[in-house]
């Protein structure tokens, strides 16, 4: 890692810790409903991306305990869905829907910066801090990454986990509130929303059409978010539409190596592939939409990228993979960010930046 890169990373992390320890800091956008000191105070709120009209609806998810994975009796179960583990989780907010192109494209195409320039608005402190996380991040693609399936209110897709993580970092600095991808355990907990059945509405796949976009009803493409029925905690499209990135490395051995009682588990990635996405998609059949299903990322997801080294930002063939964000009630310390939540190996260097390129 070059010195410059190291400093940039530490700087970003430090910015965070500073921001979030001082609620009145000018680098936090004031949203009264977003303020909570305890779990009891957590409310739904709409996060905003300054200079745009984009709003990201966040819902509180209570702390709790659940059985992660599926029982061996579940129909269509796969080996990597177990053995089941009892997992305890701290409270967090989660995006009511998948992140749409409306939000993702602001980061991807620097739309907030363009708007500022066009309307002659000055960059504020947050804008300046966020710039290193958005200019040339990601690099401009060569193709329409929505692949003609639509953008307004449709879920963003085709990003690598690194891109999804960087989006979260950028959003964090832009808002002053810490956002990240969910852990796999958080994702399944939120998907189940207190249920223990194959789907969050029961075991009957015939009802899927009311809750999810999948192969049978999506018309061979993703659909606008939030149109089907939500799960018991108010979250939309957890079972279908697009699969969603989580932070964890994928292990085909399932949860066997993990302890029987788990507190806020996270498997920090140490290899680029396979990492984990959760929730079925418009490409999948009913069985693949079950709450416990795990999907491993593969190098095939970059097959169409005709450049080598291939982009660290795009999975040109993952038209079924998007993301959903979470915000933990308690913002991690700079140390925890560095060693856990923001950590993944190998570090991704951009080939387009000679200072960053290193193999």
């Amino acid at each position, binding site marked *: 890692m070059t010195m410059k890169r190291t400093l940039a990373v530490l700087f970003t992390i430090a910015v965070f810790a500073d921001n979030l320890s001082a609620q009145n800091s000018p680098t936090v956008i004031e949203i009264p409903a977003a303020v909570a000191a305890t779990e009891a105070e957590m409310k739904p709120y709409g996060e905003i991306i300054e200079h745009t009209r984009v709003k990201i609806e966040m819902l509180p998810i209570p702390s709790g305990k659940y059985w992660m994975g599926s029982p061996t009796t579940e129909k269509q179960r796969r080996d990597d869905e177990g053995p089941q583990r009892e997992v305890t989780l701290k409270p967090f907010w989660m995006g009511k829907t998948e992140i749409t192109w409306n939000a993702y494209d602001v980061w991807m*195409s*620097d739309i907030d910066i*363009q708007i500022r320039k066009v309307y002659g608005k000055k960059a504020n402190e947050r804008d300046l801090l966020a710039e290193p996380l958005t200019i040339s991040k990601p690099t*401009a*693609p060569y193709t329409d990454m929505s692949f*003609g399936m639509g953008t307004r209110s449709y879920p963003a897709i085709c990003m690598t986990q690194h891109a999804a993580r960087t989006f979260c970092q950028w959003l964090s600095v832009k808002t002053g509130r810490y956002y990240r991808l969910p852990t796999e355990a958080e994702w399944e907990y939120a998907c189940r929303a207190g249920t223990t059945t194959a789907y969050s509405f029961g075991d009957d796949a015939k009802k899927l059409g009311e809750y999810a976009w999948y192969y049978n009803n999506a018309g061979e493409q993703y659909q606008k978010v939030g149109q089907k029925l939500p799960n018991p905690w108010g979250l939309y499209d957890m079972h279908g539409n697009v699969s969603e990135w989580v932070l964890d490395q994928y292990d085909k051995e399932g949860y066997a190596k993990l302890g029987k009682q788990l507190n806020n588990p996270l498997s920090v990635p140490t290899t680029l592939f396979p990492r984990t996405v959760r929730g079925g998609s418009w490409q999948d059949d009913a069985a693949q939409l079950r709450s416990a299903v795990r999907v491993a990322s593969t190098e095939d997801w970059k097959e169409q990228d*005709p*450049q*080598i080294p291939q982009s660290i930002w795009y999975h*040109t063939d993952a038209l079924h993979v998007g993301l959903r964000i979470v915000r933990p009630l308690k913002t991690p310390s700079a140390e925890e960010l560095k060693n856990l939540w923001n950590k993944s190996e190998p570090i991704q260097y951009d080939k387009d930046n000679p200072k960053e390129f290193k193999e």
Partner: protein
Amino acid sequence: MSETKPSRRQFLRTTGTVAATAGVLSGVQAVHAAGEGTIRLAIVGCGGRGTGAISNALSVPNGDVQLVAMADVFEHRQKASYESLVRRFPKTVKVDKENMFLGFDGYKKAMDVLRPGDIVVLTTPPAFRWLHFTYAIEKGLNVFMEKPVTVDGPGSKRMFALGEKSKEKGLKVGVGLMCRHCDARGELFQRVRNGEIGDITMMRAYRMAGPTGYAAVPPKPEGISDLMYQIKNFHGFLWLSGGAVSDFLIHNIDECCWIKDAWPIEAKAAGGRHYRGDNIDQNFDNYSIEYTFEDGAKLLMNGRTMPGCHKEFASYAHGTKGSAVISQSGHAPSKARIFKGHVMTKENLVWDWGKAEPNPYQLEWNHLIHAIRNDEDYNEVQRGTMASLVTSMGRMAAHTGQTMTIEDMLECDHDFGDGLADLTLDGDSLLQPAENGTYAIPQPGLNPDYEY
């Protein structure tokens, strides 16, 4: 359609130009025929696409291909390219240190490492294509060159002549218009020839995808020369790449012309620089080109690099009996389909490919190596140059505000590549900035004869 100009029709037909009459066997191309020996590769221009092309070359089934020499003007690019390739292909990437060349004359040194019948991969910005191709022909090398192959009229004239010369020598030359190698589009082409959508009267193509590649170029930082900054951001500068039109729109234009089996004779176009901010490149951020074919049919090509707008990367054909998707999802898969009428719904679907589409970037290499191994005629220069010229015609129509014909293009005296052979790493560029660091940009109507 007029039948009165056979020679011109011949010139403007897209097919038939590749499969020339039985070529002259010079002995050069026979070196690797019948599977004799390893084919050696040299790459000139080690960017992402060039490196990707080498990766495809080294992945040809039973190809027996090795990479032996590399040339670039950026050391970090060359290093990145080498390291990525050697990791993927430890057995077939065999580039000795002394065969890594840096500098504008590196192309000669890299080609000097090869023997006649080996392949040089020309993947620098397109400005250099004719210069490098000239030397490749001299050395009797087979060639793979990326698109576009020219960026202006004078360069196209040179390339047409070089193409003929390479054909006379029996060289196999592939051009990176990989959509031409797509199986699904190939079947669509046959079906359209069979009259399944009637006569094509109108085509539409779109490459509207937000900021793309290096089309928008921010002001030059300290510590890099104008020349090297321009090359690094070659999509931004017309002399190097033909800009966003030539680099991005050529695939859609080419696949439409293929399906139409003709090249347009005229273009008129609109475009402008709506959001340029402090960017210093020469591109517009939106282009709308109307091409006219000899039979009066139209091709409407829309290109846009503005963020936040409707996105579409697709080509469609409309005929007297029905319509077709030529491609609908970027380059691959094409999702080629035929419909009755012009409402492209499932109910109206007449034909689709119906199976997985192989990667066309790989197919174009499989085909080239096959032609070399079997000593079959294989020369895509003529059609690659026509595609490049037609694309430049649309761009020039937008940039000058004038209607442009093929003849106008070929007669144009603005040679973007004048002085190209004399560039040096620490020398001036062919395009020099004004004192404030900006460059001459197209001024439609006010500068009606030249693009800058």
